[in-house]
């Protein structure tokens, strides 16, 4: 049988997930240097593309959100098609894709959150940061979530960049937020917010904090919030000191310096206080009679070195109670299994080797199935980290094609795939639809001096398109 990848018979690839990884993979496939002619169809369960760039990246970080313009360039390729509002596992099955594509690439990201595993975690008022982030960014699934912003004290567990995003959004003034593309419902709710104190809780010390330097620096410049750090908590313990002396890692040295600088600051009496704590772990959330969280019990940690010298936290016997009415756990995202696709429970990713999906029994690659991005390696790294990651997977895909190891679909024509999708999801969204929605969002924002005003309901988007 002739090998696909020619103008007469292009290699047809289905990409599931239109986040950064989906675009980077599509780009690598369409611009491949082996001269293989490829057609990609990109599916997303949301009507809108860009994944976490739209639904995760903070609204007050417009500069990074602008990466979408490069993604649009990829989408302008005539051999790129987008089908929004099409969910793998629901609207389309693995069997459907196998019947229409030579290769299938899963780039579905990490759709849920990790849990802390402590009592009281599910009390009212305790939420995963993932939900709050999706809500303020206007993700349609989270449109009607409610967060009790009448509380005066909130805690964010974890000190990664997502935790910083959440704390920063809680500490911004309505004026600061109104200049962003934060979802309207969130802007309204945050305008009325009575949150005065926001705690960021790190379980290890300042030298092990997961946030990056520009992010920790940024909170020092908030318009109406003081950053408060305890000097004794950012003083390095002997183990951290020794590790840092040896590594001389510049980013970490700088991070510690920034935090120690905050410890020297005198609070300026601003309306809000962002308090960054280290070496504490929540052990329990306590509730009132109505099941609402009212306090958090913290244990003080000390650090110990593992066999490789990595420093990890260990609980002491010192406890403290922190009264809080709102808790966001920001301890990491986690991938969810896709129906019919092998999953590696240990790491919360699709079972894979360099992006080739593996059969759980034979440990051999499954013909025609691949993965990239957060669902391949786990929820870490910035937008661009997904580029080399996608490139690695695409290299495997092209190598396998060269070996003739691809699916042999019964209907390998673009028209057949489209007919199936339209039959299953009559309301699916094309890239042209998205570009139109984008224009409308931007023009709705203009009179208010905002980058855009987002549509946050699927029905709203359909109506805006006159459907």
């Amino acid at each position, binding site marked *: 049988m002739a090998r696909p990848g020619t103008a007469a018979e292009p290699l047809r690839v289905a990409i599931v997930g239109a986040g950064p990884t989906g675009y980077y993979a599509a780009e690598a496939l369409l611009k491949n240097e082996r001269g293989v002619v490829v057609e990609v169809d990109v599916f997303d369960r949301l009507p809108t593309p860009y994944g976490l760039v739209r639904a995760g990246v903070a609204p007050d970080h417009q500069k990074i959100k602008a990466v979408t313009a*490069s993604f649009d360039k990829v989408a302008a390729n005539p051999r790129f098609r987008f089908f929004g509002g099409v969910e793998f596992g629901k609207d389309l099955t693995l069997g459907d894709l196998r019947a229409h594509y030579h290769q299938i690439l899963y780039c579905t990201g990490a759709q849920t959150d990790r849990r802390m595993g402590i009592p009281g975690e599910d009390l009212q008022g305790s939420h995963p940061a993932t939900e709050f982030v999706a809500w303020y960014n206007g993700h349609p699934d989270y449109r009607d979530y409610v967060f009790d912003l009448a509380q005066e004290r909130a805690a964010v567990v974890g000190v990664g960049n997502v935790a910083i995003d959440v704390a920063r959004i809680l500490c911004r003034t309505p004026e600061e937020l109104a200049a962003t593309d934060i979802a309207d419902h969130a802007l309204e709710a945050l305008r009325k917010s009575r949150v005065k104190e926001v705690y960021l809780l790190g379980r290890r010390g300042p030298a092990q904090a997961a946030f990056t330097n520009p992010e920790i620096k940024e909170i020092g410049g908030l318009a109406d919030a003081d950053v408060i750090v305890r000097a004794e908590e950012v003083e390095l313990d002997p183990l951290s000191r020794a*590790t840092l002396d040896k*590594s001389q890692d510049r980013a970490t040295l700088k991070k510690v310096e920034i935090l120690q600088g905050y410890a020297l600051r005198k609070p300026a009496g601003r309306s809000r206080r962002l308090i960054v704590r280290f070496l504490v772990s929540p052990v329990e959330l306590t509730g009132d009679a109505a099941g609402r969280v009212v306090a958090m019990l913290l244990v003080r940690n000390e650090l110990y070195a593992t066999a*490789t010298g990595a420093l990890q936290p260990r609980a002491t016997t010192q406890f403290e109670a922190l009264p809080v009415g709102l808790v966001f756990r920001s301890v990491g995202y986690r991938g969810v299994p896709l129906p019919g696709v092998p999953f590696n429970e*240990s790491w919360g990713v699709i079972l894979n080797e360099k992006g080739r999906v593996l059969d759980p029994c034979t440990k051999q690659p499954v013909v025609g199935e691949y993965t990239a991005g957060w669902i391949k390696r786990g929820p870490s790294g*910035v937008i661009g980290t997904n580029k080399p990651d996608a490139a690695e997977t695409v290299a495997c895909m092209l190598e396998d094609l060269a070996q003739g190891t691809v699916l042999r679909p019964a209907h390998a024509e673009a028209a057949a795939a489209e007919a199936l999708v339209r039959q299953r999801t009559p309301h699916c969204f094309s890239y042209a639809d998205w570009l139109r929605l984008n224009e409308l969002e931007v023009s709705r924002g203009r009179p208010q001096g905002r980058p855009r005003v987002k549509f946050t309901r699927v029905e709203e988007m359909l109506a805006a398109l006159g459907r």
Partner: protein
Amino acid sequence: MDIAGILATKGDKTHTVRPEQTIREALALLARHNVGALIVVEGGERPVGVLSERDIVREAARNEHLFGETVGDVMTRDVITGAPHDDLLTVAHTMTERRIRHLPVVDKGRLVGIVSVGDILKAQRDQYQGELDTLQTQFLSDERGR
């Protein structure tokens, strides 16, 4: 980033050998799996040593009867093991400092994977490359319409 991120894209197979197996058998395994080292495990999953190409070469240089020796006699004992949540930077330092090429990763007493110096270097390079690629993607976006 922690080393679990490396294991995530390495499937879930770790190539192991038992201490009572012969070097001849171990060599066959190294060749078949195209790897530089095997983790020596006892009782199913408890790592007790590492058998690397280097261990075998060192033994070969002084022992004519190498092939029939047992893995347990030739392997490196007292291996350092990693934990999934150990961070990349520290592990990289420790591996280079102590000249360890293969690090078994153990979680709750169970062998869950192995990372090599090559894996660590690649992960560090990808992390750095990712930052550059973010900037480049931003830069290409700025060129909009120009």
